[in-house]
């Protein structure tokens, strides 16, 4: 009988997660206790829980880079940033969701408490990925996040397209998970451990040339990359994306374009950079090629789309490509290396602009319109503010200064140029120009065409506030990006603590 080392967790380090868990319990209990017409109060519970969880990050001493649960859980700057991104994305998602879920946009309506609980579960899972110190935690976090999102995708269960999107997402997601854990198994086999820092420590002889790279490690690397490639929808593992985005209830599309992606990239950073960093020579080229293929495919195919949700789905593939460029710019754990920080910052900005874009689509749907390009006709005449918000999001996604998206792209390009990946930087730029075609079309249709179709007035204060927040955030956070970037740059400190 091996000596079982008892775990004495530092509960203080997981306060944000605990608060979120508590919120979930309260929401579920509210579902049971409250009568149906009072369910909308749960929206506020969820928002308060998320905000509290976000604020509780202040109680933790991040500088120490502590870990608990035998190193399974890490409270370092990387996890802090992920917490911030995910918490904000969660708040914004809830804000754009409530009117949709409570409204009559979907046949048969949707149950709000379950929706919120699933959303919060997914957020919690993603936070765990961000704080993972072990392959096991990464796996559990990703699955916790993904499973909830599968369910959310098919949440409009009276609508076939929703279920269909969910099915495709689910089948490919589960397939990817299988590949991912097979990769983890091989990593474990090759290094004898599943702790990220330990893996890195055991691989260090490889870089100093004292040991060769085993074939099994390369296999593990490949499997991990493919598995995570599915999760972030990198080409050629993207097949589920457009269908899932189009089929899912609109706020869910917005949510799933951001948070699961954050989870995927957090896992990539944790696994590839923190654990397999010593093998970077083997994966950098792979990631760079993935990045190129992904952004080219996503942006080119997006041009042909008439359905705005589908278009945003393809464009999110394109953005995955941009973010991958940031990862491909990894050059070793030095204070100057901007690879992971550019990824983090991109994810932060992507949360604002993409949830915002889907939020506007939700806003339109609340007013009885559809989700195709034609439904955006003349929006500027009907509602100048909504059109302005959409314009801000579209231009930001395009990467136009001084909006947030520009800064994100700028940092990514900077990271790429810094390590001499000029060709990738140029590709990002060229693809940004290509993306102008379809983003601009939305703007053009809103401003240059005359309104068509019926329009019903509807009051959606929370959604409107959310959109305003995101639009302002998209405008302002770029200009004030300095502290954020400093924070993101501390990933070096986070990953360096062995």
């Amino acid at each position, binding site marked *: 009988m*091996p000596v079982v080392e008892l775990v004495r967790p530092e509960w203080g380090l997981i306060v944000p997660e605990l608060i979120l868990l508590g919120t979930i319990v309260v929401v579920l209990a509210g579902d049971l206790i409250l009568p149906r017409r009072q369910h909308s109060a749960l929206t506020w519970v969820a928002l308060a829980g998320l905000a509290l969880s976000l604020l509780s990050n202040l109680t933790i001493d991040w500088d120490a880079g502590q870990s608990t649960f035998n190193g399974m859980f890490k409270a370092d700057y990387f996890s802090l940033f992920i917490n911030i991104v995910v918490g904000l994305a969660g708040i914004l998602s809830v804000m754009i969701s409530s009117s949709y879920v409570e409204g009559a946009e979907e046949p048969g309506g949707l149950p709000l408490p379950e929706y919120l609980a699933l959303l919060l579960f997914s957020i919690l899972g993603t936070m765990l990925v961000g704080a993972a110190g072990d*392959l*096991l935690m990464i*796996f*559990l976090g990703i*699955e916790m996040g993904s*499973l909830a999102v*599968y*369910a959310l995708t*098919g949440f409009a*269960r009276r609508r*076939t*397209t929703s*279920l*269909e*999107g*969910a*099915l*495709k997402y*689910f*089948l490919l997601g*589960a*397939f990817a*998970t*299988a*590949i991912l*854990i*097979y990769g*983890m*198994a*091989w990593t*474990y*086999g090759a290094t*004898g*451990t*599943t702790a990220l820092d330990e893996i890195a420590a055991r691989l260090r002889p490889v870089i100093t040339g004292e040991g060769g790279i085993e074939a099994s490690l390369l296999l593990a690397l490949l499997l991990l990359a493919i598995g995570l490639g599915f999760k972030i929808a990198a080409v050629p593992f993207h097949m589920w994306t*457009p*269908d899932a985005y*189009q*089929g899912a209830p609109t706020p869910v599309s917005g949510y799933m374009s951001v948070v699961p992606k954050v989870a995927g990239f957090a896992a990539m950073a944790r696994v590839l950079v923190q654990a397999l960093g010593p093998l970077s020579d083997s994966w950098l080229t792979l990631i760079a090629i993935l990045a190129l293929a992904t952004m080219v495919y996503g942006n080119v195919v997006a041009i*042909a*789309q*008439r*359905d705005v949700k*589908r278009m945003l789905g393809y464009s999110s593939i394109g953005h995955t490509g941009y973010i991958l460029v940031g990862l491909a710019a990894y050059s070793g754990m030095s204070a100057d290396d901007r690879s992971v920080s550019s990824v983090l910052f991109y994810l932060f900005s992507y949360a604002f602009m993409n949830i915002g874009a889907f939020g506007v689509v939700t806003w339109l749907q609340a007013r009885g319109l559809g989700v195709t390009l034609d439904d955006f006709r003349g929006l500027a005449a009907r509602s100048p503010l909504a059109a302005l918000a959409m314009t801000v999001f579209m231009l930001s996604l395009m990467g136009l200064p001084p909006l947030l998206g520009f800064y994100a792209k700028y940092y990514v390009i900077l990271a790429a140029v810094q390590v001499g990946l000029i060709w990738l930087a140029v590709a990002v730029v060229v693809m940004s120009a290509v993306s102008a075609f379809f983003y601009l079309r939305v703007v053009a249709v809103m401003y240059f065409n005359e309104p068509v179709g019926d329009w019903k007035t509807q009051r959606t204060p929370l959604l409107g506030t959310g959109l305003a927040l995101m639009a302002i955030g998209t405008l302002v956070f770029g200009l004030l990006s300095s502290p954020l970037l400093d924070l993101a740059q501390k990933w070096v400190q986070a990953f360096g603590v062995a």
Partner: protein
Amino acid sequence: MSELTSSHFLVLSAALFIIGMMGVLTRRNVLVIFMCVELMFNAVNVSFIGFAWEQNSLVGQTFALFIIAVAAAEAVVGLGIIMALSRRLDTVDIDKVRELRE
């Protein structure tokens, strides 16, 4: 009968994994695809157990336990989706599930 080594586990696991993968890629019945995914999960479990056995550590076994649990949760979500969809479309043939096209 020769001694059992970790490569036995690994070969078995790889075989199962590849069978599952081929199943996912070639079969058209949603349920069969789903079962193939589950097969892949279990192949991974075999791998983990094999490695844990080889290294005489508990980590792999723990991991396998967690995989089992997650696979169960995954099965539940997946079956829910498949059930809801098949009740709407009256089919489990993935080629017939194609409303989401441009």
